[in-house]
């Protein structure tokens, strides 16, 4: 095994470590250096650092490759390199609206004091694609403004086909028709002014997918024939759009209801 001479170790320690100039620490460190313990300790720390770090890096890559436990802990975000992993053909923005006692509606995000535009011209709220964090934006806005009592907060998703984002000259080379932009809106969350969630709905695109599934009569009939059975245990009942007999009815209008009706 290659052992670096103690004078090298001392020089290394001296670099950037002015703490060694403190008298007591200086005496202790000199004694340790003379005994060679610091050198050995440093070597093993270095070995451990290399092994642990590379182990973590390669484990992350392996987990990502086989898609195992990539969302099991926040630390995985530091070792899974899934840049640009998803995409959608539809652009998405988030609107946060508050409903006052008087029946008036107010913009709750961005706050009236301005907003952070982290990566260009788009406000921070629009990077919350799923709208999960948007109620916090609303509560923060309510906390720092004067307003009438607010009864409900709505997080609304605004969606449109990305092809309408093309510049005019690019559009004219691909299409013969003029742009005919259509924006779709979907209420994602309804929240009380103190942050209690009243309603949560899937994204507009998920809803379209659910509707397309619901248009299959055979699938619908089979789902109705299915009888969930729980023999034992507190197994959570499968919930959601595609759980037993729970298809979205395209004819059913999604309602957000009145202030008192919910």
């Amino acid at each position, binding site marked *: 095994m*290659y052992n670096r001479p103690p004078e090298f170790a001392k020089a*290394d320690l001296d*670099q*950037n470590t*002015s*703490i060694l100039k403190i008298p007591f620490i200086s005496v202790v460190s000199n004694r340790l250096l003379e005994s060679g313990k610091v050198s050995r300790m440093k070597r093993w720390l270095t070995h451990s650092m*290399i092994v642990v770090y590379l182990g973590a890096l390669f484990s*992350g*890559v392996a987990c*990502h490759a086989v898609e195992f436990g990539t969302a099991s802990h*926040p630390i995985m*975000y530091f070792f899974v*390199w*899934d*840049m*640009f992993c998803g*995409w*959608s*053909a*539809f652009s998405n923005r988030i609107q946060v*609206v508050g409903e006052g006692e008087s*029946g*008036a*509606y*107010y*913009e709750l995000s961005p706050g*009236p*004091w301005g907003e*952070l535009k*982290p990566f*260009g011209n*788009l406000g*921070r709220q629009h*990077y*919350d694609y799923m709208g*999960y*964090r948007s109620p*916090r*934006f609303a509560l*923060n806005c309510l906390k*720092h*403004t*004067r*307003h009438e009592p607010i009864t409900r907060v*709505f997080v609304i998703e605004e969606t449109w086909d990305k*092809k309408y*984002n*093309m*510049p005019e000259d*690019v559009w004219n080379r*691909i299409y*013969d028709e003029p742009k005919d932009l259509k924006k779709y809106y979907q*209420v994602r969350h309804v929240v009380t002014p103190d942050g209690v969630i009243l309603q949560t709905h899937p994204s*507009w695109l998920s809803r*379209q*997918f659910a509707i*397309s599934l619901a248009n299959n009569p055979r699938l619908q009939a089979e789902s109705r024939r299915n009888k969930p059975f729980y023999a034992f245990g507190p197994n959570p009942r499968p919930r959601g759009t595609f759980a037993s007999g729970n298809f979205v009815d*395209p004819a059913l*209008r999604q*309602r957000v209801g009145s202030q008192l009706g919910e």
Partner: protein
Amino acid sequence: MSMTTAQPSLDDVGLQSRFRRFFYAEEVPYGLAIVRILIPLALLCVMLPRWVYAREIFSSDGAVAPLWIAYGYAKMLPIPSGILAVALHSSLIFFLVTSALGWCTRISLVCSTVLYTYLNLLDSISTMTKYSVIASHVLLILSVSQCGAIWSVDSWLRRRQKNPPPGDPVRTRPTSAVWPRRLLQILIGCIYFGSALTKIHTQGFFSSDQMQTWVLTRANFHNPVGEYMVLFPALLVIFAYVAIVWEFLFLFLSWNGWGRVFMLVIGAGFHVMTTLILGLYIFPVVCLSIYFAFLNEGDVQRFADLLQRLKRKFGFDPSRRQSGFQWWPLFQVPQAVRMPSPALFTLSTLVVAVIGVELEHWNDPYDIRRPEGPHTLRELDLEFVEGTLLASSEPMRNRDKVARIDIGTFLIGGVLGNRRTEFKQGENVIVQCVMNAGHEDMWVECSLRDDRDRVISSFGRPVAREMLRSNYYYELSEALEPGTYFMVINGAGEEVLRRQITLRLRSKISQADSKSPVAN
């Protein structure tokens, strides 16, 4: 492996010794010093504009968006109060500056790593991205390296303290083990490898559908070149294959020789293209800064020699050079007033944090203390809110299920290679109907119509929900008169898109060249 300073005591034979040389050879940390200077400067570009919003995005007095919530952890780390968040953010900016300068380098880098990672974790929607994760890794590795040994205030102070005569060993560049540089090299290789795996997992990557929608996302900075790339989908297909091959090979070929040159040059091109096509700015800067970890002593020596040759060529005489620091003695602090560097560093950190908090107080980010009091809320149009925003969501229009129709004559990777609107009689034409992901199972018809909108031919096919393309083949035979025609796409029983084409007369030469229909 690229070794610069071989240790005489190391045995060159055997895997173990090669492994040891790979990680523990000694060298002057030029590459690490450059990374140490560049990465904090890049991060300052991100963190300085966020300082004004520190209370809002990093504190309990704002709208934090912690990363751990998305992973199902309710309380993993404490969320700081407004004042604490501002103090931490101000300190982070100070630590990033001192890291770049190399003043109390190790402490600066350790504090930068901890604070940068912590603040990023508090704002997962607008601060934490993959480049910030990469930067956290780099800061961590730099923290345990000797990157401050050269080109830093620390090294200058050390030389100044010892005041060695010329030729003294203290004046020579300090060396350290190469392993932190190796970790950075392996890190960037793993990032590319993981990124390639992501691309393999991503539906629509090789058919360029993902890129075509990303360039139109408008969620990043301005990307005018990217928006024009939509016109060349086949080029995006080729880029996709080049990118994935390069990403897989980087970890294995980027160590020395021509492999290193090729990998780094392609990498630089790749990152520049992400700026032009996708509007990414900080991500490329962070990644390209790490590329300096591939710089070894030999490279620096070669560069220094080249610089010397250039100086001599252009008649620059180093002996006549005047020191740029001649003014420095004017500002020398008297010996009696001098403070140890760590003490001054600690004091400066505290001063910066306090000044930051005070400045933020004066700035009044929520405008609460202005004379007219806090803001009132902006009222929205009742009709717009109830009639549009809160109305029940509408189903997707048929024309939004179809992205476009492309007409051409050949395919590359399933994508139309040439988009044309003019054809000659006798040409075989491919009409490609590009669907938007999210469409339902559809019956899509493509019809060829003349200038009076009479259907000449029409045929349809089912397009299942997972399909993103549907091709229709036509032969524009000589039975068709030259003139204007339309390719019309009908989806779910209604016209969705149409594209005009012009049919030209087949030239006489090509008619003569064509084989006779009668066998001789």
